[in-house]
C-alpha cells in the first residue's frame, strides 16, 4: 500500500488535534505557545503535501512565510510571558484575567 495524500492529511489533522488539546488542557503559558507551534507545524505539513501533490512550489513558499510569522509570534509571545511573569510571579493563565493592574 503506497502512501497517499490522504495519509499526510490524516497525520496533519491528528497533530492539529493534539495541539488544540494542549491549548485547552495545559495551565502553563509557555506550553500553550508550544501547542500553537504544533498546530502551525500540522498546517505546514498540509501545505507541503498538497504542494507536492499539485506539483507546485507555492506550498513550500507559504511554509517559508508561516515559519517567519511563527518566529515573530514566538518572539512577541515570549516577551509578553516575561513581562507577565515579572508582574505576577506565575505562568498560570488563570492569574492573568485582568487587563490592567
Amino acid at each position, binding site marked *: 500500500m503506497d502512501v*497517499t495524500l490522504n495519509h499526510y492529511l490524516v497525520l496533519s489533522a491528528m497533530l492539529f488535534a493534539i495541539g488544540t488539546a494542549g491549548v485547552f488542557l495545559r495551565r502553563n503559558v509557555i506550553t500553550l505557545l508550544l501547542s500553537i507551534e504544533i498546530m502551525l507545524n500540522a498546517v505546514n505539513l498540509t501545505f507541503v503535501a498538497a504542494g507536492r501533490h499539485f506539483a507546485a512550489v507555492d506550498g513550500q513558499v507559504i511554509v517559508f512565510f508561516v515559519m517567519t510569522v511563527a518566529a515573530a509570534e*514566538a518572539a*512577541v509571545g*515570549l516577551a509578553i510571558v516575561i513581562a507577565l511573569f515579572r508582574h505576577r510571579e506565575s505562568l498560570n493563565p488563570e492569574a492573568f484575567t485582568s487587563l490592567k493592574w
Partner: protein
Amino acid sequence: MAFETIGFYVLAALAIIASVGVIGQRNPIYSVMSLIGSFGALAGLYILLDSPFTAVTQIIVYAGAIMVLFLFVVMLLNVPREDAAEWDRSHPLNRPGARRFGAVLAVFLLLELGWAVWHASTREAVALNTVSAGGVSSVAAIGRSIFTDYSFQFEATSILILVAMVGAVVLARKEPQ
C-alpha cells in the same frame, strides 16, 4: 513494502508520540525537548515529500532558533512545575453542568469523526504524484517564486520581523523605577 511507506509510518508515529509528549509533561523543559523531536520527525517527512529546502529550514529555523528562544525563556524564568491539584479545583470548566455539556459535544464529535473516516475509506485515495527532479524539490524554483510572484509578501514579512523585534524589546524591557 516500499521504503517510503515504512519511513512515513515510522516518522508519523515519532511525530505523534513526541507531540503527545509535549502536552503530557508537567515540566516545560521536557515539553520543549519533546517538541524538538517532533520537528525532527516532520523534517524527515518533508524529505520524503521531495522538499529538502523546507526540511533544512525546519531544522535550522524551528529546531535551531525558535526552540532555543523557548528554552532560553524557560530557563531564564526558572519556571515552576504545573500544580495539577490547584487548577482541578479552581477551573471554571470543572462544574457539573460544563461536564455534561462537554460529554454531549464529545459524543457528537466522535460520531462525526467516525462518519468522516468511514466516508474517506470508502472513497478512492488520491495518490501523491511522482514529481521528477527539478519539480518541487528545486531550491532555485522556490527562490524564483519567492522573489517574483511573492516579492510583496516577502517584503511585508521583513517589516513584520522588524516590528516583532522592536515589540519584543519594548515588552520585555524593565520599566525604569
